[in-house]
């Protein structure tokens, strides 16, 4: 037998020092992390699992949900929001406001005790500067639409440090008006006035932001974690001061890893927990509490009424936003007829989809509900519950199609007309197991009535691009619903609305959208939106499938957790942990 030794002591020493050298790269010394150890409150750390890192900490150029999550905690909002069937604005930086009689001017009074973290007072001029950035084409702010209904030069009009006026070109829904002016986090004019506006996304401000909110940026290791700590220069209401020591947004792109990190206790909060995992967590981890967010996400099938090939040929070279003549484009031989779309809707068993995909096996709790439109049921008054759902009735669907000339003439089990089979491709995005399963269930349902549906899963970017270019026959896709009503992007027939993937065109709907958005009386607007939903449902441009409720899992040691439809991490400053349950004492 031969004994082996790895290597000589000298080589072993070399190897260890090499490895140690490699891993020491980036090691920092002990920092001043006990800054809050003498606080009177028991403090703990909240670790939130996030799928992706933030890109920027500047609201005017922010784009992703991760950006918003961080920014909303670093900045004190102009107005706070709460949601109970409708969005409601609450005082924050703006301590009061009032509308003019004609509904076109909002006068605001700001608090005078809010400071930036460098000690400079937050004033109305910072707000005007923020809107100036939004307006500047060089910035290319995704929020540029916010100012389109404001009077130039008065976006807002600064009266003095604590008073300003917002002038609108016309009166419209007050909730939407308020959300247009309060959705942005304010940018510090004294810091960013001289910044190059064309490269704001990469500005050094992102690494060392000057904030005015309850939290400040502690550390940002890109791709790894973002640490927020209580803003020790917070000068606003003392009762709003955070009760946690820090919040860590831990970037873990893979869902399975995030879930296992939650189970192991390495993270405390996980969004979008899948239902089967929620069932298992309920059984195995009583220390994890599950919250429901509310009906925010919709799945639907978009039927393309136009012939994709003809559309492509006619529009070759036409740029986005240009006028496209849809009238000259050949109709899709299947979905160009609303009666076919209605018949297909009757062959899709939405209740089965909800039972199979969105219902807890353990508790029978349903996380899905049938959809009749793109307005979320969370908007209780606006959502039209009175629309009678098309029943699941495959026999009726088959009958309807037969009346339209679709029958199985050649006995191959597939309906046909003029020798052409009823065959189409249902496109969906890859990487979404729920939609993959849903498409198979839908395919089986359609097969029962003699419709040959072929499924195509494609990469998400390509999927979205093909939707925008109307390069599909049918697509299983989804929307995240807005909490104020603005259906124009999806349903208005104007050429600039590129999210109207199905080229939906109904003059009455166009008119309702235009008038509804300009209607200052909320009750009248509600009636218009309800009518709009009924009209669209009648036409079935989509097969509306289900609304989904998201599950958010949080460790039970956190108290006063208030998870709502606005955000799972709203009001983090209220969260606290009892002294005997604090996990991270430093």
């Amino acid at each position, binding site marked *: 037998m031969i004994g082996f030794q790895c290597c000589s002591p000298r080589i072993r020493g070399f190897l260890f020092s090499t490895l140690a050298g490699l*891993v*020491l790269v980036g090691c920092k010394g002990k920092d001043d992390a006990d800054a809050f150890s003498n606080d009177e409150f028991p403090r703990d750390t909240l670790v939130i699992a996030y799928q992706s890192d933030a890109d920027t900490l500047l609201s005017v150029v922010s784009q992703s949900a991760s950006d918003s999550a961080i920014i909303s905690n670093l900045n004190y909002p102009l107005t706070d929001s709460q949601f109970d069937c409708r969005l409601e604005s609450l005082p924050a930086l703006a301590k009061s406001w009032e509308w003019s009689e004609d509904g076109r001017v909002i006068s605001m009074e700001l608090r005078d005790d809010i400071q930036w973290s460098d000690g400079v007072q937050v004033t109305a001029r910072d707000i005007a500067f923020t809107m100036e950035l939004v307006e500047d*084409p060089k910035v290319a702010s995704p929020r540029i639409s916010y100012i389109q209904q404001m009077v130039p030069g008065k976006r807002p009009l600064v009266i003095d440090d604590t008073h300003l006026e917002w002038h609108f070109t016309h009166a419209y829904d007050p909730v939407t008006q308020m959300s247009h002016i309060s959705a942005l986090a304010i940018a510090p004019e004294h810091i960013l006035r001289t910044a190059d506006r064309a490269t704001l996304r990469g500005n050094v401000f992102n690494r060392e932001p000057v904030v005015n909110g309850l939290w400040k940026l502690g550390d940002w*290791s890109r791709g790894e*974690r973002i640490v927020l700590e209580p803003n020790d220069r917070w000068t606003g209401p003392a009762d709003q001061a955070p009760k946690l020591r820090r919040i860590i947004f831990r*970037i873990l792109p893979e869902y399975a890893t995030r879930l*296992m*990190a939650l189970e192991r206790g390495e993270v405390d909060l996980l969004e979008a927990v899948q239902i089967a995992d929620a069932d298992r967590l309920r059984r195995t981890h009583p220390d994890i509490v599950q919250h429901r967010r509310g009906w925010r996400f919709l799945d639907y099938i978009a039927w393309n009424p136009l012939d994709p090939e003809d559309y492509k040929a006619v529009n070759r070279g036409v740029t986005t936003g240009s006028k496209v003549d849809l009238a000259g484009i050949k109709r899709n031989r299947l979905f160009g007829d609303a009666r076919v779309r209605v018949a297909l809707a009757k062959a899709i068993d939405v209740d089965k989809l909800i039972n199979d995909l969105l219902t807890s096996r353990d508790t029978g709790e349903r996380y899905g509900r049938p959809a009749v439109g793109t307005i979320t049921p969370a908007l209780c008054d606006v959502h039209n519950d009175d629309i009678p759902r098309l029943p699941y009735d495959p026999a009726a669907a088959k009958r309807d199609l037969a009346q339209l000339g679709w029958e199985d003439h050649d006995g191959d089990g597939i309906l046909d007309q003029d020798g052409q089979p009823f065959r189409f491709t249902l496109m969906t995005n890859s990487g979404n197991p729920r939609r993959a399963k849903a498409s198979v269930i839908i395919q089986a349902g359609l097969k029962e009535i003699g419709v040959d549906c072929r499924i195509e899963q494609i990469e998400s970017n390509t999927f979205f691009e093909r939707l925008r270019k109307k390069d599909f026959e049918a697509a299983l896709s989804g929307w995240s619903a807005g909490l104020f009503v603005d259906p124009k992007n999806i349903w208005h027939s104007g050429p600039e609305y590129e999210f109207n993937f199905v080229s939906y065109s109904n003059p009455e709907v166009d008119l309702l959208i235009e008038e509804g958005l300009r209607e200052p009386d909320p009750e009248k607007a509600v009636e218009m939106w309800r009518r709009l939903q009924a009209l669209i449902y009648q036409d079935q441009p989509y097969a509306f499938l289900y609304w989904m409720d998201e599950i958010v899992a949080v460790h039970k040691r956190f108290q006063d957790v208030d998870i709502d439809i606005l955000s799972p991490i709203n009001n983090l400053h209220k969260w606290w942990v009892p002294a005997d349950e604090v996990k991270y004492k430093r």
Partner: protein
Amino acid sequence: MIVYVTRKLLLTIPLLWGVITLIFILVQLSPGDATDRFFTPETPPEVRAMVMEKWGLDQPVGVQYIRMLTNLLSGEFGYSIPQERPVFEIIGEKLPNTIQLSLVTLFFLMGTGVLLGLSQAVRQYSWWDNIVSVVSLFFYSMPTFWLALVLILLFAVKMEALPIAGMTDPVMHAMMTPTEQLWDRLVHMILPGAALGIAGAAGIARYTRASMLEVVQKDYVRTARAKGAAERVVITRHALRNALLPIITLFGLNLPFLFSGSVLVEYIFGWPGMGRVIVDAIFQQDTPLIIACFFVYTLLVVGGNLIADLLYLLVDPRIRLR
């Protein structure tokens, strides 16, 4: 040797050009571009035009290509479009993390692979040889994605012996002493390193075994035994040194696999390295960043191969570079 190295480096130029051209074409063929994320349906056409002009995306593809090559020749790799930061600033943040993981993994897979292969060869057809062969084949065939998740489930969730993901403890690392920080980094590296390196180690073990079995049949090994040298000396001094020569080639060849494998491993383990940068850049169609990433990867791979060639030269005096 200088001539050899210079010639190798010169050969890198057409290789880099080929890689960059191919990547550019692939990015152009993919739908949309990086500026899509700046726009909403309400974005005015003049704003769209301004942004497209700023990034040169309003130019014909040929012009964009020539401009990109000209910029690269002058060392100008440009800015990431979504982040508006110099691409080398982004790469500079992440590359050390990937190199750290890859090199530690390389040591692991070379060390483990050689030891296992050697132990098999000296006990050919024993139960140990058979078991290691089967286990090696098993791990060699395992998809990295699956293996990584199983390792996490087993060692991090069930046994609670190792951390699940990340480079360091997200909460406590900043409060640790330097020694604790070093240990923290090491333990965080074990699972991703294992996921990245196990298949490679299994491969090295197979090669080492085969190479050793071939070498021990050689005359000089028989001569050494005939001269009365101890078996240990015969194996380590005479057989192993010669058997390791082809393994050195594998050292260089493993580098590309480590870098490409790190894309998946970094994604699963939340390791903030180049793999994640590439994936994000591809999803965001961030052409300048994609090009720069592949440029750096190509250089690393060429560098790895060059090091392997030079090592070959050092350990085998019979070889002369021409």
